[in-house]
């Protein structure tokens, strides 16, 4: 009888505890977290700096990928369906609005990180184009961060104060980065601050730190109006290199370096190094974060032009 009693007691306890056991087993921490899908690596880094481990953050673009020409895959569409929030750069960086389309098709909210920013307007053969490469100054990166912190606080209001605290720390890191860049470039005389790169991505950077910027390929590597390479642009860049006595030209990690190598050979200048442009470096590299990417770019430019 006492065996029967014990058996029933055990069965009772197990059945009572089973909901608790199954609940804890099904709690995959990454699955229960809010899921934020970003179009580019820079946006994903800004978002991670703000949310820490509170949210799952994924960048659709990988290291070295080109957002102008990117074609979304079926897996991207699946990720968009899973996402709680989508974040895009905007200003037509995502060629043919691929991120906006993914989010819209999945019925998910999309935040544009450049909202409120005053974009540079480029004159591309009589056409006015808003330059999308705004993250290239820490001052603009602060606008991205503020837009993202507002969006994630709305998504997950319970953790708002934590997101804001992380953002405050990161914004001060951006401030220090900006001061550091100014101090570094002080070593290059203003007349020698000429930046020749593969495509026209460094206008914000050049304006902020007193550089003249030249590129054979327009604001986008894609086929949009005012984008791509023209023979006139190519000739203009070679003439500039010769006339301005440029010491080095730079290739970009997300653009085929062939064209710039040809130009360097033709103009008789060296390749100063590879700059991170439309996406950051791979995991484990010095350019895997925004601050690391900017730091490495500055050091590469310094080394090339000094």
């Amino acid at each position, binding site marked *: 009888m006492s065996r029967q009693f014990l058996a029933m007691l055990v069965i009772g306890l197990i059945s009572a505890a089973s909901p608790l056991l199954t609940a804890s087993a099904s709690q995959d921490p990454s699955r229960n977290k809010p899921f934020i899908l970003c179009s580019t690596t820079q946006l994903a880094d800004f978002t991670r700096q703000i949310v820490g481990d509170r949210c799952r953050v994924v960048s659709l673009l990988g290291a070295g990928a080109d957002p102008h020409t990117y074609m979304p895959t079926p897996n991207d569409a699946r990720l968009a369906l899973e996402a709680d929030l989508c974040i895009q750069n905007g200003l037509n960086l995502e060629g043919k609005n691929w991120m906006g389309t993914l989010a819209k098709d999945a019925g998910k909210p999309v935040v544009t990180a450049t909202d409120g920013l005053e974009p540079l307007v480029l004159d591309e053969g009589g056409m006015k184009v808003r330059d999308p490469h705004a993250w290239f100054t820490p001052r603009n990166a602060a606008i991205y961060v*503020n837009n993202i912190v507002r969006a994630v606080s709305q998504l997950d209001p319970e953790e708002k104060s934590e997101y804001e605290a992380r953002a405050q720390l990161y914004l001060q890191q951006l401030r220090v980065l900006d001061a550091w860049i100014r101090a570094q470039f002080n070593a290059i005389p203003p007349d020698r601050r000429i930046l020749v790169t593969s495509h026209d991505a460094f206008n914000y950077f050049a304006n902020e730190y007193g550089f003249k910027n030249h590129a054979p390929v327009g604001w986008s590597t894609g086929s949009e109006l005012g984008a791509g390479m023209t023979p006139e642009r190519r000739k203009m860049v070679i003439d500039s290199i010769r006339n301005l006595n440029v010491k080095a030209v730079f290739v970009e990690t997300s653009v085929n370096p062939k064209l710039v190598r040809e130009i360097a050979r033709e103009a008789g200048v060296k390749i100063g190094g590879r700059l991170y442009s439309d996406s950051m470096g791979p995991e484990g590299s010095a350019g895997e974060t925004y601050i690391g990417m900017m730091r490495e770019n500055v050091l590469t430019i310094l080394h090339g032009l000094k």
Partner: protein
Amino acid sequence: MRPAFVVVIWIALMGGLTLYMQSRETAVVGESYELHAAEGAFALRITTTFPVEPDPFALRTDDREASALLVKVNGKEILRRTDRVRPGEPIQLEPVPGLTDGRNEFYLEANPPLDDANLSYAIRAQLFRDGKLIADRSFWSEPGSRIASSFEVSLAKEPAVKDHDNE
């Protein structure tokens, strides 16, 4: 009889577990104590060696403009300037709200211009009680960074005061 006994034990166990889980989530409320406002007429004077400017790297989660100069006492904002403040121009705040008997912490935040990234800047804070200087602190920034410092002032009931630096 025994199955009924098992059911009773099961209900008792589950009830106990539920009560425990609920009580675990209840926050422990700390013992509250009253803070008494410090007596006397207080004034705070702030002087900077640099033009204070609104911070382009400020956290902006509401519609408020970014601050150039911010002063808090015991966590409460008592002064917020969003305009440019000229160097050497003293800013006087009188009275100083939020001061209590005992220890008080001042927090100062000031944003130097971005262009002179190689320079360090200073800010001076002076606290007066009934016209008498009771605390005088200066803080320096690292080159390129803003000033964000705090200092503590102990206010006794009688206007005899100690000044502690807590940068």
